[in-house]
């Protein structure tokens, strides 16, 4: 791999940028791979990278219907955190955060992981207690966490509404200093470039139309660019898992829902952390380019349309102004929606499936971006060894049958309420 560094920038700057190589090749699909990963998003590309890097498997194809990184890795609010309460989540997301901390250097691609911290405001004594419980669990699992009182919040974020007229006053906040944001596109591109350097074939504009079976076993995929044989097939197409799952004959507890995000015009830095309202759906961070990036709740009904409704935009705007009265003059530039795989407990499904040769990585709900490295790492392990990595042992498909769901919000079993 042609290394990226300040020296390569200087060298290329002086030679008219003529020597930058392709970040990844555009190969034609071979007839057979050891592993075929369906879905060239963050998770699929990360899986390919870790299969090569950790397990020495190099004969891999990542097959992408459109362009890589065009799904949810490219349309999220880029927040990375590991403030999870429940056993099963806590360790997994912390492992992911640790991978994030080294990711730019692992990939030789600057994913701009900015550990600026995340603050979630609490608006009642009960919410402070709930955040304290969460922070205790995090601390006991080796994760940094604090609960701030009102004055501490005020010092950190002076522009919140501390006035008498705030509908839901601020009592305190949950704070994780190692949380932050990353440049989302760079994550897909970085993994793609690093996987490609290991010999992984990234095949764009190639849609999987079916699965090739030998008896009960899946041994490859049918695509718009012909049949491709595979020792193992991994699905990493969150948002559209149901559609491919159906082609493979999987019955899934997944619904597709829209989560929207918005960005304002770029302004000089004002929001220095990731901040979230605790009395409504709204979380905000400011990108390095200067735009405030907002997220909120689901649109609330099944959808595959990558657009959202204005009602949700208004909900988030209301919450945003309620939390930060100074931002009402800032203007929204774009809003868009991503299609999420929602599960009944809002936890992912990442496991071998009942179908021999087929492995599933989906159901990420609204939490997929921050999970990208750990998901790739653990899914690679699962694909390489045939059995789940211990960190994802709780994310099996059978948990709905057994009752071992991991319901962080206790909102189950309705996906749209999660």
């Amino acid at each position, binding site marked *: 791999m042609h290394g990226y560094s300040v020296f390569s920038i200087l060298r290329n700057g002086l030679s008219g940028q003529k020597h930058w190589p392709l970040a990844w090749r555009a190969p034609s699909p071979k007839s057979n791979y050891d592993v075929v990963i369906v879905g060239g998003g963050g998770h699929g590309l990360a899986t390919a990278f870790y299969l090569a890097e950790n397990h020495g498997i190099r004969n891999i194809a990542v097959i992408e219907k459109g362009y890589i990184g065009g799904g949810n890795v490219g349309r999220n609010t880029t927040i990375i955190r590991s403030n999870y309460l429940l056993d099963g989540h806590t360790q997994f997301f912390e492992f992911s955060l640790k991978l994030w901390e080294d990711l730019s250097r692992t990939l030789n691609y600057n994913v701009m992981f900015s550990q600026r911290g995340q603050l979630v405001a609490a608006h009642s004594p009960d919410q402070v207690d709930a955040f304290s419980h969460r922070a205790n669990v995090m601390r006991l699992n080796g994760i940094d966490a604090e609960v701030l009182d009102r004055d501490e919040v005020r010092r950190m974020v002076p522009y919140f509404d501390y006035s008498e007229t705030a509908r839901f006053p601020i009592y305190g906040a949950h704070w994780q200093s190692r949380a932050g944001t990353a440049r989302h596109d760079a994550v897909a591109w970085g993994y793609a470039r690093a996987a490609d350097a290991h010999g992984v074939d990234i095949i764009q504009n190639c849609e999987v139309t079916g699965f090739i079976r030998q008896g009960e076993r899946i041994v490859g995929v049918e695509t718009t660019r012909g049949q491709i044989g595979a020792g193992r097939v991994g699905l990493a197409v969150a948002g559209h898992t*149901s559609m491919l799952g159906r082609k493979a004959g999987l019955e899934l*507890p*997944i619904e597709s829902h829209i989560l929207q995000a918005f960005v304002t015009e770029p302004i000089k830095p004002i929001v220095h952390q990731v901040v979230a309202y605790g009395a409504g759906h709204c979380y905000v961070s400011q990108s390095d380019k200067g735009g405030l990036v907002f997220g909120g709740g689901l649109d609330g*009904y*099944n959808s*595959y349309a990558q657009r959202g409704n204005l009602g949700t935009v208004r909900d988030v705007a209301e919450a945003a102004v309620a939390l930060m009265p100074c931002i009402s003059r800032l203007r929204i530039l774009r809003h868009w929606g991503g299609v999420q795989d929602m599960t009944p407990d809002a936890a992912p499904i990442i496991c071998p499936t009942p179908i021999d040769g087929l492995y599933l990585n989906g159901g990420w709900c609204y939490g997929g971006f921050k999970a990208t490295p750990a998901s790739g790492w653990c899914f690679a392990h699962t694909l390489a060894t045939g059995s789940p990595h211990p960190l994802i042992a709780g994310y099996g498909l059978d948990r*709905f049958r057994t009752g071992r769901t991991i319901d962080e919000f206790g909102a189950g079993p309705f*996906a*749209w309420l999660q």
Partner: protein
Amino acid sequence: MLQIKCPCCGPRDHDEFLYAGDASVSRPAHNDADFERWYRYVFVRENPAGAHREYWQHVMGCRQWLIVERNTVNHTILSVNFSREALA
């Protein structure tokens, strides 16, 4: 804003309604003890990209539960009926 034409209140913004998911699944009888049927009713979802039958309740209006047939790709609403009448 989806415009859902409530059979008795007329067209309304969808935020006057409460969503309750797939209406094509069939709820087992209240005294049905079959685990598999309950499991499938509660958890297994077809999740189609296309026509989807789903429950909405007009909570800001007549409070009737409706069955709305909607395309999940383009949000075209194909039909709206009272759940009771769709059942009948």
